[in-house]
């Protein structure tokens, strides 16, 4: 392992992270809700009446973010190397997996760890570990 210093962006990462934390702060202290994206989106399929509006509002804000960003400056580089077939399979697995495991990088990784939930710490260690293992297999075993 070696750190790629030319790609490492500590300040924008920390500040961007802090802004994500601020978004989670707003949602919990004002609305009493956890900012877990998979839970908010997945809940659209199961939520009862009166529990749908805020979910759609949150998702709309998230989807609108790149548009608002572009209003002020150009979007930073976005590169997706995966093929459409891989993206379809990956999307399906992410959809089912995050719902089955009750959370993703935001719900478990940010909010769960922030409130010291042992479930979320375990979930985060698992999906980060398995994510690293998956990338290792794809890049260094299958493609070598």
């Amino acid at each position: 392992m070696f750190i790629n210093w030319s790609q490492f962006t500590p300040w924008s990462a920390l500040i961007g992270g802090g802004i994500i934390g601020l978004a989670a702060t707003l949602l919990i202290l004002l609305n009493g809700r956890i900012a877990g994206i998979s839970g908010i989106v997945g809940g659209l399929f199961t939520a009862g009446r009166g529990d749908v509006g805020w979910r759609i509002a949150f998702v709309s804000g998230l989807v609108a973010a790149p548009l608002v960003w572009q209003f002020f400056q150009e979007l930073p580089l976005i590169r997706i190397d995966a093929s459409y077939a891989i993206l379809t399979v990956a999307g399906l697995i992410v959809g089912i997996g995050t719902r089955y495991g009750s959370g993703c990088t935001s719900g478990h990784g940010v909010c769960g760890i922030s409130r010291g939930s042992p479930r979320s710490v375990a979930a985060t260690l698992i999906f980060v570990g398995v994510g690293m293992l998956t990338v290792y297999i794809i890049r260094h075993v299958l493609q070598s």
Partner: protein
Amino acid sequence: MNNLIALLSGLIFGLGLILAGMANPAKVLAFLDVDGAWDPSLALVMAGAAGVASLAFAVARRRHLSYLGAKMQIPNSRAIDRRLVLGSLAFGIGWGMAGICPGPALVLLGSGSAKGIVFVAAMLLGMGIFAMLEKNR
């Protein structure tokens, strides 16, 4: 009012993701690729987010109602069960395949990326399948 807060929170969340570089799947994969040219940025994103959010949750845990009078809906389950482990395992595989998790997926959708749209469609299908399976449990 709750919907306005949710809209703002989603927007701020998305702007944070873009600034942090996390809307770029290649950068996320550079974090997950520990055997390549490793980019530790994602770890700092989580640290920054958790640093701020932990203050909020320290306050939230002592309250029954939010500052706007909504019920605090904080999960209280502590069990590390099979569903949590298997679900997170599956998520990790999908995340490693594409470098996209649900938040950035929605930002990619908004950026108009065709690949992002396909990923979100598949992810929604997956969530729909889960909801159907749960209903018939």
